[in-house]
């Protein structure tokens, strides 16, 4: 579904990605782990053409999107949806208008059909009946759910999750983890989850990629990661900084 080859990205004077090779297979959930600021979100944004690589290729369904002009990326983005870290809801629209946005932009005009699809998407993210609320009246977890409903309402083949549990309490995080898994089963989507939360990684992942110093340092299953004796991986899993008091 998504494949990147020798992906390099430099932002300002900093080389963030230094030759990433990664393949995400159809129907699987791939989790990209790494420390804050290591380039996980930058990598994720390449998958949907929000960033262009300095060099390298990004294939979505075998089509290289790395050099596609913005207007041609529209059809790729119909296949690949993204849930932003903050939810990125349009703050001038209520929940219903936010979720209906991609439907209206796709040319759907029948208000009844739009209302049904919005209600169905909200039901999938456990927010049934919240159509009238404005984004500023939603909690962090609810914003992410509404953002997710907006992403899934047009039924993309692949969903990218950018730090879906960051800033949420443990219970809300667990709820989002279940939601990701449930959606994957219900919609049979390919998912890529960027996180530094080990609970999210273990709960949702079919495969885990660990990003370290701009490269994929580890790629394997959750069990392989858990039982790895590599000190870099173990320090991350255990949350050891190596600093002393």
């Amino acid at each position, binding site marked *: 579904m998504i494949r990147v080859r020798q992906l390099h990205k430099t932002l300002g004077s900093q080389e963030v990605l230094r030759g990433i090779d990664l393949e995400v297979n159809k129907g699987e959930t791939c989790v990209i782990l790494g420390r804050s600021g290591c380039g996980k979100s930058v990598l994720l*944004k390449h998958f*949907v*053409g*929000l960033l262009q690589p300095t060099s390298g290729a990004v294939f979505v369904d075998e089509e290289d999107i790395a050099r596609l002009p*913005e*207007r041609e*990326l*529209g*059809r790729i*983005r*119909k296949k690949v*949806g*993204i849930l*932003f*870290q*903050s939810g*990125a*809801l*349009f*703050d001038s629209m209520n929940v219903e208008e936010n979720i209906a*946005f*991609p439907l209206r*932009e796709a040319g759907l005009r029948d208000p009844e059909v739009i209302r049904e699809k919005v209600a169905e998407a909200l039901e999938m993210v456990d927010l049934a009946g919240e159509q009238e609320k404005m984004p500023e009246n939603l909690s962090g977890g609810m914003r992410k759910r509404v*953002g997710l409903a*907006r992403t899934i309402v047009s039924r993309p083949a692949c969903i990218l999750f950018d730090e879906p549990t960051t800033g949420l309490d443990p219970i809300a995080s667990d709820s989002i983890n279940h939601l990701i898994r449930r959606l994957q089963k219900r919609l049979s989507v390919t998912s890529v989850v960027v996180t530094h939360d080990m609970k999210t990684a273990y709960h949702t992942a079919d495969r885990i990629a660990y990003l370290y110093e701009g490269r994929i340092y580890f790629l394997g299953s959750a069990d392989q990661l858990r039982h790895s004796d590599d000190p870099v991986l173990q320090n991350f899993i255990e949350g050891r900084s190596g600093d002393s008091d």
Partner: protein
Amino acid sequence: MFRFLGRSVLSLLQYLGELAVLFGETCKALVTAPIRWHLFARQLVEVGFRSQLVVIVTGAFTGAVFAAQTFFQFHRIGMESAVGAVVAVSMFRELGPVLTGLMVAGRVGAAIAAEIGTMKVTEQIDALRALGVHPIDYLVVPRVMALMLSMPILVAECCGLGSLAGYLIGTKVLGISEAYYVDTMLKFTGLRDIKMALSKGLAFAVLVVFISCHQGLNAKEGAVGVGRAPHRGGGDRVAGDPCGQFLPLLRPQHHLPSGLVVCFFHVP
């Protein structure tokens, strides 16, 4: 010193290049992309209809004060009847477009830059792109269309109300003969002056909307960046325009919209 100059020149060239790209992309979108008429209508109300009060009040007060001051000076040499011509010609050729430009730059330009800038730093523009919607089609095109339609109308209102206020002050308060006032006003104010006012209004619309949208789309550094965007997009940058309007007056009366060059010399 040379490094500073070099950086300034490069920065200016980059800024001009970015504006040119935005202008080109918008022109292309106006022709090829679907027009979102509901957004256009909303912007028309926001930037045009809601700017009327401030523009009309400014124009009317300027016309009234200008008429009074001109009368006080002309009265000494017995040329009161020329007040109408001076007020009307000044309103149409310079004051109307410049005052409207400043009011709209301050009110609308700053709002556009702040709104788009906020969307940029809160990832809403990335969300638009991720949903397959080009930000220029959705955010810039409706604003460009609305301001280009509104601005000449606002300029006309400002000039018209300014001239009317001048007429009322001159004839009803200061006692100038109505016949003389109207006669000199019509004698010296022609179609050419009206065309000049409207074309300058159109030029201001292009400047205000593209500079503001550009600043919004390029907002950085979170809340601080959003805070700076309106100044760059609205007041500061367009403040160059009155100078640009005035300078060509030093040459023989110039018909073409002015202000384009001086405005850009504010390096981002």
